[in-house]
């Protein structure tokens, strides 16, 4: 097990180096930069600024400067925010994690239950209705679903605030502040959950259908095991194994932010910041953020592979 972990961690290094090269080349091939997009400064000043920031050097040299600084934990300076990239990411990413974590928990719980029941009651009316709703929600674009949610939940019903993270001008502290935050989370979390539940539900339904027809489920029934135990102990445990791969992908998803949803609900998350950074050509912020996500993706994969061993005795390393 220890050997496996060490080997896998060492394998992460060339992967990440490859990712950094691709990232850097793509961004250095795009014409223009933050200084070019600023129309208010003179050509001399622009050249001076480019020299200060090293933008006049050849791309390969710039890559090594950037990469060696990144290794030390310095991902450069955000032109747009006028602070270090790491500071910007740290400032906004936790807001994104907050809604992503809540919606992820809801998505998985709802998807497991709906998926299991529509597999057990295959082709029934319940299965049909659920499939219809879930596909509908999955197919709607997030901006449309977001607007629908604002119209019905926030405006017509008044159950939740329209957007933002805290009530403007509020000086509440302690519990009141937490409650205010939770209220503002209702809409973005609902929309993200509605968007995510569809695919996962189908996944669990298929996985569960596959397991329910296995011989060992028949064996369990023939032993006189209660149907609920058959489903939730004998079948679900097996059905969840392939889902672990998905769980590995959820790690980067947790931190990546939801660009459009955050924009619609005016949520100060990293997704929205990323979208703005694209418009401003704030390359260091973009590269730092994408590098961070790549690292999480690779780590998520490692985590998934390790979890497999814990859940499935057949791949457990002795």
């Amino acid at each position, binding site marked *: 097990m220890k050997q496996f972990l060490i080997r896998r961690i060492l394998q992460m290094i060339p992967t990440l180096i490859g990712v950094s090269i691709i990232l850097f080349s793509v961004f250095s091939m795009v014409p223009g930069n933050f200084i070019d997009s600023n129309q208010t400064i003179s050509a001399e000043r622009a050249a001076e600024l480019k020299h200060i920031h090293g933008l006049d050097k050849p791309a390969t040299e710039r890559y090594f400067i950037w990469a060696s600084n990144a290794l030390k934990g310095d991902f450069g300076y955000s032109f747009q925010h006028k602070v270090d990239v790491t500071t910007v990411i740290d400032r906004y990413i936790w807001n994104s994690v907050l809604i992503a974590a809540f919606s992820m928990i809801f998505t998985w719980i709802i998807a497991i239950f709906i998926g299991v029941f529509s597999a057990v009651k295959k082709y029934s009316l319940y299965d049909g209705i659920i499939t219809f709703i879930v596909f509908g929600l999955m197919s709607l674009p997030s901006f449309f679903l977001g607007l629908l949610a604002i119209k019905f939940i926030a405006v017509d019903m008044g159950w939740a605030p329209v957007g933002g993270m805290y009530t403007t001008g509020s000086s509440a502290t302690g519990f009141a502040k937490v409650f205010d935050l939770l209220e503002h989370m209702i809409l973005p979390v609902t929309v993200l959950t509605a968007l995510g539940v569809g695919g996962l539900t189908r996944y669990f339904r298929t996985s569960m259908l596959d397991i329910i*027809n296995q011989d060992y489920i028949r064996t369990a*029934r023939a032993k006189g095991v209660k149907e609920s135990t058959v489903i939730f102990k004998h079948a679900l445990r097996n059905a969840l194994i392939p889902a672990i791969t998905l769980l590995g992908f959820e790690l980067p998803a947790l931190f990546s932010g939801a660009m459009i949803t955050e924009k619609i609900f005016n949520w100060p998350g990293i997704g929205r910041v990323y979208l703005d950074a694209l418009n401003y050509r704030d390359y260091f912020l973009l590269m730092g953020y994408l590098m961070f996500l790549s690292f999480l993706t690779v780590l998520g994969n490692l985590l998934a592979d390790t979890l497999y061993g814990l859940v499935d*005795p057949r791949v457990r390393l002795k």
Partner: protein
Amino acid sequence: MSNNLIEFRNLRTNFYTGSGVVKAVNDVSFSIREGETLCVVGESGCGKSVTAMSLMRLVATPGKIVGGEILYKGEDLLKLKEREMRYLRGNEIAMIFQDPMSSLNPVLTIGHQIAEPLRIHKKLSKQEAKKKSIELIELVGIPRAAKIYDSYPHELSGGMRQRIMIAIALSCDPKLLIADEPTTALDVTIQAQILDLMRDIKKEFNTAIMMITHDLGVVAEMADHVVVMYAGKVIEEAPVHELFNNPKHPYTQGLLKAKPVISNRQDRLYTIPGQVPNPVELGENCYFNDRCEHCMEICVQKQPDLNIYDNKHKAACWLYEKEGK
């Protein structure tokens, strides 16, 4: 005949498929006496397994039991509530399946899977169930039982897994053990061991066995009584010696002729001509008529009944009726 343990009376189980209704079990009646081994033989798709699954009331959709009675100790199983039926499953009527490789749950330990019926039906505590499980593993002839208790199915060979299936089936001392082709997926030496084990168990616990097979060698070795099925119907039923010595139905005769005989060199084994009929398009005739060398006019017009002849020998064939003579 008063000590009938199980009595099938005109059982009908249909499968409602896209291409039509398949009468998988079509008016089947026979009984199993206490402590008796009854073999059900027939080729694939003749309704042997569905008969057994109907007895357990575990016929999977789109299958449905549409008629008849299954009496267990005089009580109709088909009228029991699901909860009462569940109490019988694994407790008084236990079942082992064809493929031991896929019949055990891969993520649960062997011990857990043996202990489960003990905890459900006998209400044993965790320690008692563990003790009894280890005894059962020893009973079915697996050494190092305590270590096996904590193993997972993938760590065991096919023969060992089938022994574990038998241990699970025996855990609550069932009155009837249904064995659905228990040796088909095993190699020949392991087959012999498993059959020996089942015979020992029958002797020791006086368990009745309903053995489903298409291997006439297994029948000769195990059975007291034989039921031959064809296309969802019982076509012949007799004590084992009577059946082997004096088969009545042309299908049974064909099956016995198709069996290789040691010391009798043959270039080619006998095969029954033709194919099993499509189960969707069965009419009111003898289902074997197009493959039968004795086929008469009446065979394509009317279905023969299962009638008793000498020596408790039942057969459904016009050859033995006055209409056919």
